[in-house]
């Protein structure tokens, strides 16, 4: 099976953040491969190891995004495409989906994999938008992938239970990080990745019909989430603190 995995570079949510004049200031040196995409790459590699095939990745982003492509190649992906942007465009999920659709429309593949969401924005839109634009059958929130004949059997985490869904090829699935623990690239993998092909396509060369400013959604500002009132720590004898808190939950909070 041939997989094309759409990967994104995102700011590390654990890095220190600052808000200045409503703008979010992040340390670009702490950008990482989106965790959900790392899981998608991992799962494709596991299937490739078992059944053969190919795993390619594609990323839309500025020059720095190359790092995320290198990471995927070091994990074991075969090749990468970098759709190069300037870095200051205001793209939303719909714009990214349109750009990916323009890139993928004349490509050969069995399955497109996306992350279920971007780790920084939690939007979760691009995957199913892309499926709709390409006219592909799709499923979201996959927590497991396996091969069933020539098709992909997707275990999807639904609201209550898990659904086993047979997804014909070509098709698209979005992946949860509950699927696996992505491998850490080995030194050998890192060395090999340097020789793997990365094709760079300036975004202006793609016929994507997406201007830098015509997104239908816009972020207009950021603020810190209001802190909860600091609570109280109870550190005494277990008997004592258990009793105190149990009673307060009843009398002071009325939640028992």
């Amino acid at each position: 099976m041939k997989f094309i995995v759409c990967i994104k570079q995102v700011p590390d949510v654990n890095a220190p953040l600052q808000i200045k004049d409503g703008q979010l200031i992040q340390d670009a040196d702490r950008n990482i491969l989106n965790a959900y995409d790392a899981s998608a790459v991992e799962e494709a590699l596991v299937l490739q190891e078992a059944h053969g095939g190919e795993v390619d990745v594609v990323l839309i982003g500025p020059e720095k995004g190359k790092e995320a492509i290198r990471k995927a190649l070091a994990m074991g992906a075969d090749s990468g495409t970098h759709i190069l942007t300037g870095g200051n465009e205001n793209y939303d999920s719909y714009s990214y989906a349109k750009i990916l659709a323009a890139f993928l429309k004349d490509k050969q593949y069995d399955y497109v994999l996306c992350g279920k969401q971007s780790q920084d924005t939690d939007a979760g839109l691009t995957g199913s938008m892309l499926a709709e634009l390409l006219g592909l059958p799709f499923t979201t929130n996959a927590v497991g992938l396996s091969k069933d004949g020539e098709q992909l059997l997707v275990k999807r985490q639904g609201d209550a239970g898990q659904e086993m869904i047979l997804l014909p090829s070509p098709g698209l699935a979005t992946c949860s990080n509950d699927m696996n623990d992505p491998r850490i690239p080995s030194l050998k993998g890192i060395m090999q990745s340097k020789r793997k092909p990365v094709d760079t396509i300036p975004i202006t060369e793609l016929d994507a019909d997406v201007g830098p400013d015509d997104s239908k959604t816009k972020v207009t500002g950021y603020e810190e989430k209001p802190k909860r009132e600091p609570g109280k720590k109870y550190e005494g004898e277990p008997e004592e603190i258990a009793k105190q808190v149990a009673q307060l939950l009843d009398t002071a909070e009325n939640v028992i």
Partner: protein
Amino acid sequence: MSTILTYISITDGKIKRSSLEVLTRCNELAEQHGMESSAIIISDNVTGAADQLKKYGPSVIYTIEDPIFKNHLNTPLLRALSIAMEKISPEVLAFASTESSKDILGALAANRKAASLADVSEFELTGNGVKAKRPVMASKIISSVEATGSPVILTVRSGSYDLVEKPADSKVEEIPFSFSDSDLNITLKEIISATGDKVDLSEAETVVAAGRGVKDEEGRKLIDELATVLNAGIGASRALTEAGDYDPSLQIGQTGKVVSPQLYIGIGISGAIQHVAGITNSKVIVAINKDPDAPIFEIADYGLVGDLYKVLPLFIEELKKVKRET
């Protein structure tokens, strides 16, 4: 008159509380802006739900009924929603944020060429679209966003609005729909149901959540016992859903579910931001952890520092006493 449309999800014939929260908000907005607030139910059996819904004030209750909707499948749901939007032309279509609505949100938006916003915690109308707040960066930051055009399709986090009853003389209107199995492009082979989750976590009034500190059968028994005493839903951190100790549908947090209970009790959970992202809508947060520096204590209203295997049995006994007395 222009319409704001709320999608009502039902499970086992019962309307989800989170859908009614969204409808309440849409009722409010419709009143402010001289619009009509309507609702749509898409199900294999709409009868009971349509009646229940009249208590919550939609002007029109649109229904689409077909056996294909017995289980969630994105293809027929997308078709039904496209037909409904064609017919109703709403300015806004709002869903409660669930795995089912997240499954189709992007595709529906692309299909309708509509702007979409996922998982908002507040929203209002601007005249040419919607203005909203969304938690980002694992819920550390709130972003203000604007979506322009009509319609705007959005999903709303559970617990963002309080539900208000508003009995109305709603008109029920069925939208014709047909779907044959050959229209399906994916096949649902099997559903593996979650084990043991009797209370719907995202709607539970009380949530007991287990983390890596809960190491064994004895620990899990204590969790069960606490949940029984409090009639609580059980959830877990990723550490334990990943280990297979708890069903993946019980994961709370960024990857898992957002909960909004009156009382959340986290046991043996460190409080990683990705877990905390799912619990900050809780009214009261209690944590039991043996590490006094665990980050969960920074957000807990009541932090019990101690070994859960010692504290929890005593806490359960005390809660039983409190319950007997009230």
